């Protein structure tokens, strides 16, 4: 187990140790280190305190209307068979049929699913634009740089993010470097 700062394990190791996600050999070594290092004992306590505080943080109860909506999804998708004596006396058979859950439920389900579907936020999809759309160079360059700057040997601290075309500015007629 490599260490920094006088041989103490990395904070990541303690985080995994608290989660019981360390390999057996690693756990033994960490436990042995804890016995003699008050600094790391505090680190472990701090992680545990943070976990406990997070679990204690209040969250609202699930709203009743959401629960009913979710439960209703199953009921509409898989309706129960109609009850034998559900129809009131005196109604003609064709009315009793229209009022039966077998007819009402699919109609309601369709309406519900349509409402849910229309209300969903769809992610934008690749679509044909009505006219050609000009994409700014910065769009692709910044997307490229955002990832490139995360690599270990990227010039992270010194690299500036701006449309690099302003820097390069040269003409290809001078000949390619590569």
């Amino acid at each position: 187990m490599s260490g920094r700062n006088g041989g103490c394990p990395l904070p990541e190791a303690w985080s995994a140790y608290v989660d019981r996600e360390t390999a057996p050999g690693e756990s033994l070594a960490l436990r042995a280190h804890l016995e003699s290092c008050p600094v790391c004992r505090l680190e472990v306590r701090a992680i545990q305190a943070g976990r406990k505080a997070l679990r204690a943080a209040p969250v609202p109860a699930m709203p009743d209307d959401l629960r009913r909506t979710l439960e209703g999804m199953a009921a509409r998708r898989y309706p129960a068979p109609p009850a034998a004596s559900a129809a009131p006396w005196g109604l003609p058979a064709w009315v009793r049929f229209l009022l039966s859950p077998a007819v009402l439920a699919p109609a309601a389900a369709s309406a519900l699913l349509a409402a849910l579907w229309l209300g969903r936020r769809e992610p934008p999809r690749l679509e044909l634009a009505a006219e050609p759309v000009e994409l700014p160079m910065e769009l692709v360059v910044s997307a490229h740089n955002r990832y490139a700057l995360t690599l270990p040997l990227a010039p992270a601290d010194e690299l500036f993010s701006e449309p690099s075309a302003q820097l390069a500015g040269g003409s290809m007629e001078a000949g390619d470097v590569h």
Partner: protein
Amino acid sequence: MSTKGSLLALFALWLPAAGASAAPETRSEKRALELLKDSLEVPITPYEGEMRVVTRDGGTERSKELSVRFFPPASFRRVVVDPLGVPAWTIVSDGRTQWAFDHRRRTAWRSEPADPDFKLMDPEEEYRLMADNYSFRLAGTREVADRECTVVEVVSRDTGRLVQALAVDDEYGVVLERRTFGPDGQAASEQRFVRIDLPADAEGWDFSFKPPPGAKVVLEPRQADFLPAEDASEEAGTALLEPGWLPPGYVFESADLVPYRGLNLLHYRYTDGVDVLSLFQCPPDTRLAFGRPGPAPRRLTVAGKPARLALLSEGKLLEWGVGGRFVLLGRLGPEVLRKVAESLRE
């Protein structure tokens, strides 16, 4: 900028090689190795200075000057100045939100830097990929910004050519100079501190930014995604076209959807551990706005269809269309990019 710590494992790979290859001055070489190890960690000390950045394209050299302030772990302010010393760009970050302000166009871009922790390739895999494709060697000492530095060189295993050379401050482990090299062995770019206060007195430093009145503000509130290819395809609702051929050492890392005015660009990222190759799959009725600002592109063909090629700091950019618009961007030669482009398949 936090995942560099795993490079500690990498040192186990080349420490023995470094020791065996030369007649070391044991104490100073050991010290240099320790400094390089520290250089890949985030500096713990604030610094301030001036830098010069140069790119070379054949016989053409372009440069810019910038002032830099850095406060750990991730706050910085960089001001790019024109030849008269007047600010042209200001880039400020407090580690969570980044502003880039173009003084001439009076436009401010606000974004969040991509968090390296959310990449699909974890740090160990990334360093293994880098070590698979590159070797590292010590290359003497050098003075940069009046400070003694040790030079570490990065060499491609595939071509044997020098790719990068870093000059690392002997005392604080900060990288004071970084040079990249083209396939002809000539320097392609340089970033060097010409003056640096290390450590610096950070009293009164401010990393907040407020766009000036009347400035246009462009918000990029979304974080970059790091999606597996199949998730990106599902989100985009379209089939992916992927290269059938990649340059040696490059592998797929992740994909992202880049939104623009209701459209989505699919962005695939490939890396060899040091460099990045980006492939963008754009909707058919789109085109890149070359030359505004920037150089006019060179015209060529890809798979018999018209294409455009431009040189940027990030490398070469190739745009072409075969049933859709595509863009490649990376530090590779035009023929390599053309080969990647022509290998695209569903």
